[in-house]
């Protein structure tokens, strides 16, 4: 089979993994040296496809032959899809060619399970080794980790790659048993633990060889089963705490061709996925806990963002005086982001904050107005009830993707 034909099949097979980040790698440069590739911590999105997602890495499977029969996966063994397999050299060639063209910043390689978990993992490691050692490639490498593979192989992968990821796949153990009978939460968590220990072993040792310097991540499929957002976010929170994950990716389940009846054949729940990412960002960047974000209902509201939802449920905290409140509290005001908080704090060292300053900072005033006090503004007294505010601030709902669905 021609390389271009394999590329078509194996890119198509890999697109359901959401992650394409190339950020967080240490500073590396090829200036004046043999080889190719640099990283500086910042990710680069080299293109965007019409689904609005960033293309940062060459994201392919080494092969989509697979012995497993995960119901949500287009490459499960019972799926009637065309199959192909790259040689490690072919992946290397594509990576270097696309990199030279400035189409990508690196490689994200995953694979179907062939022969055994160890054999598959060895093949993935082989590609990374060729890139790093034969071709002096200093760009970004993300390897998918096969959970049941030998920890020694995972450790070797961790020394070559910037990031490793083990997919948790489904938010609950029951879900995994039902939809991915060959996978086990236990071995997935063991693999995460292996990676985490590898990171801890070199932490704080400047001279130690690097181990997954861009951290480990995972992906949870949302909407393939009936799990609620509270379970999903609690699970994510425990992964952040237990394994110091850099990112949990939420992937709205996309219907797959030749779909088994065990998974939905419905449009992916993109808005729900978006709200989960917002909530996740609030947990990682703003210090919210999963429990705080989901008190009343077990699912995040779709019509308002989770930060606004929290503010509406906690009116006693507000209004906050922008000239006095702690920065961490300012960050909880809807419509005011972390960057604006920094800028407000810088500005209030010079002088008093006025309402117009928020206009200049391009804060979302419709959202912020009921929750703030400035030197020349306070919300009109007789505070508006939360239910009324919510009705006023809810986002227009996109029409449900129907019509084309017979």
């Amino acid at each position, binding site marked *: 089979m021609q390389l271009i034909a394999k590329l*078509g099949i194996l890119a*198509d097979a*890999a697109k359901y993994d959401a992650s394409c980040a190339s950020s967080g790698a240490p500073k590396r440069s090829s200036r004046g040296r043999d080889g190719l590739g640099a990283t500086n911590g910042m990710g*680069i999105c080299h293109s*965007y496809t019409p*689904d609005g997602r960033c293309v940062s890495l060459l994201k392919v499977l080494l092969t989509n032959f697979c*012995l497993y029969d995960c119901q949500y996966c287009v490459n499960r063994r019972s799926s009637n899809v065309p199959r192909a397999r790259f040689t490690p050299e072919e992946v290397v060639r594509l990576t270097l060619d696309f990199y030279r063209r400035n189409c990508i910043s690196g490689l994200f390689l995953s694979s179907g399970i062939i022969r055994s978990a160890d054999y598959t993992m060895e093949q993935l490691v082989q590609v990374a080794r060729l890139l790093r050692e034969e071709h002096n490639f200093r760009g970004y490498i993300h390897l998918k980790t096969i959970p049941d593979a030998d920890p020694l192989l995972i450790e070797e992968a961790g020394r070559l790659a910037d990031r490793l990821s083990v997919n948790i796949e489904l938010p609950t153990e029951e879900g995994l048993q039902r939809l991915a009978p060959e996978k086990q939460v236990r071995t997935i968590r063991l693999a995460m633990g292996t990676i985490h220990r590898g990171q801890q072993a070199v932490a704080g040792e400047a001279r130690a060889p690097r181990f997954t310097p861009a951290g480990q991540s995972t992906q949870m499929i949302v909407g393939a089963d009936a799990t609620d957002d509270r379970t999903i976010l609690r699970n994510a929170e425990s992964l952040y705490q237990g394994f110091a994950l850099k990112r949990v990716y939420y992937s709205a389940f996309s219907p797959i061709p030749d779909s088994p009846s065990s998974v939905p054949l419905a449009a992916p729940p*993109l808005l729900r996925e978006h709200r989960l990412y917002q909530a996740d960002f609030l947990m990682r960047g703003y210090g919210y806990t999963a429990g705080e974000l989901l008190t009343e209902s077990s699912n995040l509201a779709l019509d308002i963002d989770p930060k606004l939802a929290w503010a509406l449920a906690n009116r006693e905290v507000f209004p906050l005086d922008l000239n006095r409140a702690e920065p961490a509290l300012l960050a909880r005001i809807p419509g005011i982001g972390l960057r604006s908080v920094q800028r407000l704090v810088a500005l209030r060292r010079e002088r008093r904050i006025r309402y117009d300053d928020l206009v200049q900072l391009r804060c979302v005033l419709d959202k912020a107005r009921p929750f703030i006090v400035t030197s020349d503004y306070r919300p009109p007294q007789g505070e508006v009830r939360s239910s009324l505010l919510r009705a006023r601030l809810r986002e227009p709902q996109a029409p449900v993707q129907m019509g084309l669905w017979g």
Partner: protein
Amino acid sequence: MIALDCDDQFATWREQARVLLGHGIDPAEVTWTQGPMDDLLAVPAPLPAGPGPFRARVPAVLLAQLEQAARYCGEQRWSLLYEVLWRVAHGDRTAMLAGDRLGSELQRRIKQVSREAHHLHAFLRFVPLPAPLAEQLQLDLVAFHEPAHDILESASGHFAERLGRQRWLIATSRDGIRYDGQTLDYRHTCPEQWRQWAQHADDPGAELWRTYYRHTFNPARLNPDALRQHMPGRFWRHLPEGELIPRLVGLARQGKQRDGQAQEVRAQGGKRINKGPQQGRGH
């Protein structure tokens, strides 16, 4: 009214601004021309002689910010900078801060400039030259790019980091830069020949990338607005994948968003795998 021309060079503007500040000349009294004289009412008065009596001290961070904002191409490119400098030099540091009306504009320009540098790093595409031509021109890769702001010189070092000893050239409609594997050669005006090489390079290998792009797209998640927001339309025509975008959007809209698979893959014969110890080893 003093009318000045700094040839869109920060170093020149900086010298002019230093003299103006030294003589206490108010921002309302000075203008910078951009290209042909654009202020008909300005009766050109010369720059005063000598450094002037006023000794202004401004924070070093301001100079760095002014230099970055100076790369912004737009109205009042240079006079805005002088107004900021004037206010800070006279003790009003809010002129640098995003909350202030003028400071907001300064910060907005800085942001636009750094965004445009990021666009260069992201959306520039090199075309590899075939070996005989590479030997003849002493160039491995060429690219044509159209940045909206003057960021080529300051932002191109990035490619020397990425590409090791590769020799490359980037041409724009204004300036150009060339790297011979060791040093950067920046030209304020791009040599016509560079532009020719960059714009007329044959690229049979681009089909591989276009194939990847088509297949990594998930039509079930169609969201062309997000694409447009992150990758403005002005870049599409220099991207090999640019011409695919409208067609892929169209296909997905015509009801192909039932699932994520590309049509070309669906058209091929599938293969179910029987589970067994020696099975599933494809070639």
